[in-house]
């Protein structure tokens, strides 16, 4: 609607008028993001091509060494380690998103079907964990998964883990923590779609003899697609770049990209290598975001 935008507060603006107002309103934030987002990200990209000094810090010359090491060609010969970590991060992010989706679908439908009286309360119960500190909710799983707690004992009787030992650190604990932490991010947008859903379509489909799956697939799913997409991206991308959850629940057994980056900037003091991994993580996010924004422009995935 370009012609509508040229009207401002009911007044026709000249191009100069529009631009100066745009500068005054959007300018400060743009400048801020330019300095404290774009410049630092550019710095990390630049440093990823520099050489590590003898004791940390960075030095010339420009080199691709960090990326070579990331590809597997390190000081001690070829090792597929870092590609494996990349794959592991993506796989864990995807698994988290899929599990959250599997859990959020029934929950969203459940809340939507409640009577008005209970709906608000049921929704608030999902929002509360969303507003509660993630660090706290994550380390709570250390208590829940400690040895001899009934949850741990139950898991052991199912053949998971070693009897008498904690269920963390490990991949199972990381995945549990991730799903628990990110579930509200999936439920909320999904619920917004389910709530707005036109149920008569489902009834019509059922009347026409469609079975349950086909009703869901053809009458309901297209309607909740936007919420589903938003929830997916809100879970998948942050989960892939997580640091705290694998750090507290994975105990270096389930290291993800975030953990390797942290280690390079902390104990290893290898800025160029840390920057190279960060650059790859950033690229990953930008590509993911671009894909979703392209799909989203058809389905209005993001607000």
């Amino acid at each position, binding site marked *: 609607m370009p012609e509508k935008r040229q009207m401002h*507060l009911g007044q026709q603006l000249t191009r100069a008028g529009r631009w100066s107002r745009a500068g005054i309103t959007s300018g400060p934030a743009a400048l801020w993001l330019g300095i404290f987002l774009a410049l630092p990200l550019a710095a990390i990209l630049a440093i990823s091509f520099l050489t590590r000094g003898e004791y940390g810090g960075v030095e010339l010359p420009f080199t691709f060494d960090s990326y070579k090491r990331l590809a597997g060609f390190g000081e001690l010969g070829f090792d597929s380690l870092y590609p494996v970590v990349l794959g592991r991060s993506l796989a864990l992010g995807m698994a988290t998103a899929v599990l959250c989706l599997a859990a959020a679908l029934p929950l969203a439908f459940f809340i939507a*079907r409640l009577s008005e009286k209970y709906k608000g309360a049921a929704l608030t119960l999902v929002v509360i964990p969303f507003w509660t500190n993630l660090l706290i909710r994550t380390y709570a799983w250390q208590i829940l998964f400690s040895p001899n707690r009934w949850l741990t004992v139950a898991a052991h009787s199912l053949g998971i883990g070693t009897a008498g030992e904690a269920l963390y650190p490990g991949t199972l604990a990381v995945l549990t923590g991730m799903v628990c932490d990110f579930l509200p991010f999936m439920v909320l947008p999904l619920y917004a779609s389910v709530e707005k859903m036109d149920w008569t379509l489902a009834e019509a489909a059922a009347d026409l003899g469609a079975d349950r799956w086909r009703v869901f697939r053809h009458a309901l799913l297209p309607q909740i697609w936007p919420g589903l997409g938003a929830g997916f991206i809100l879970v998948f991308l942050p989960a892939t770049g997580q640091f705290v959850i694998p750090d507290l629940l994975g105990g270096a057994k389930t290291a993800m990209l975030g953990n390797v980056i942290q280690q390079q900037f902390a104990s290893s003091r290898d800025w160029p290598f840390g920057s190279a991994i960060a650059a790859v993580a950033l690229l990953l996010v930008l590509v993911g975001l671009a894909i979703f924004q392209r799909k989203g422009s058809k389905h209005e995935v993001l607000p």
Partner: protein
Amino acid sequence: MRRPGWFLSAIAAGLYIFLYAPIVVIIVFSFNAARFGTVWEGFTTKWYGALLHDSAALSATKNTLLLALVSTGIATLLGSLLAFGLTRFDFPGRKIFDRVLYVPVFVPDIVLATSLLLFYSLVGSFIPALELGMTTMILGHVTFQISFVAIVVRARLAGLDPALEEAARDLGAGEWKTFLHVTLPLMLPGVLAGAMLAFTLSLDDFIVSFFTSGPGSTTLPILIYSSVKRGLTPDINALATLIILISVLATVSLTWLQKNKQDPHPKK
């Protein structure tokens, strides 16, 4: 519409238990007498008493609130203005900006944190004000908050009826007056929601704070993280319980407020 059946209700109940298990366990264990670890050794309230005399916890609380208040103030101002500009004026690059706005939302915290650390240490030698500490933490928090505020406010602005502003202009109000008396009150719920979100994000942030903190600027999340790392959690459980309680109270009262103050200008 059909009410949920028993099967769906059972699944939902299980999921609620799953969501609340960590929160409940923290609250329960904040009353555990054991000094080390996770074995139950009897009921006590001593950890709450200990918190009152814990100078580290008190100063971390002060730092956390200071950081959240200041950064939210700046981010709300900049983000709301940005949202207004993006919805109201067409300028070259606006479409790209619309998309770039999502980058801080999705860029992993650890990438933002380490890039800020690099930036500060490169620039810091020329600008002494950029020494690691409260200032650099505030700058970092505003950077990820702006986008969230802008997105929330923009959603509110997009749903406003332009006829109201046009009416004000027709009645002779100037541009500035129209903005102040018509547009601003209308976008205010969005601004408040954005500020709330920004405030919570700041309270929640661990990684950006951790990498950009300096001496004496430890925040609650940093304190909690390092205590968990050291395996020292009884007083941290008490602290976490208080934080949880405040979050629950805030959420419930906000929901209640929204319900009872019926909005005369809902989105669409």
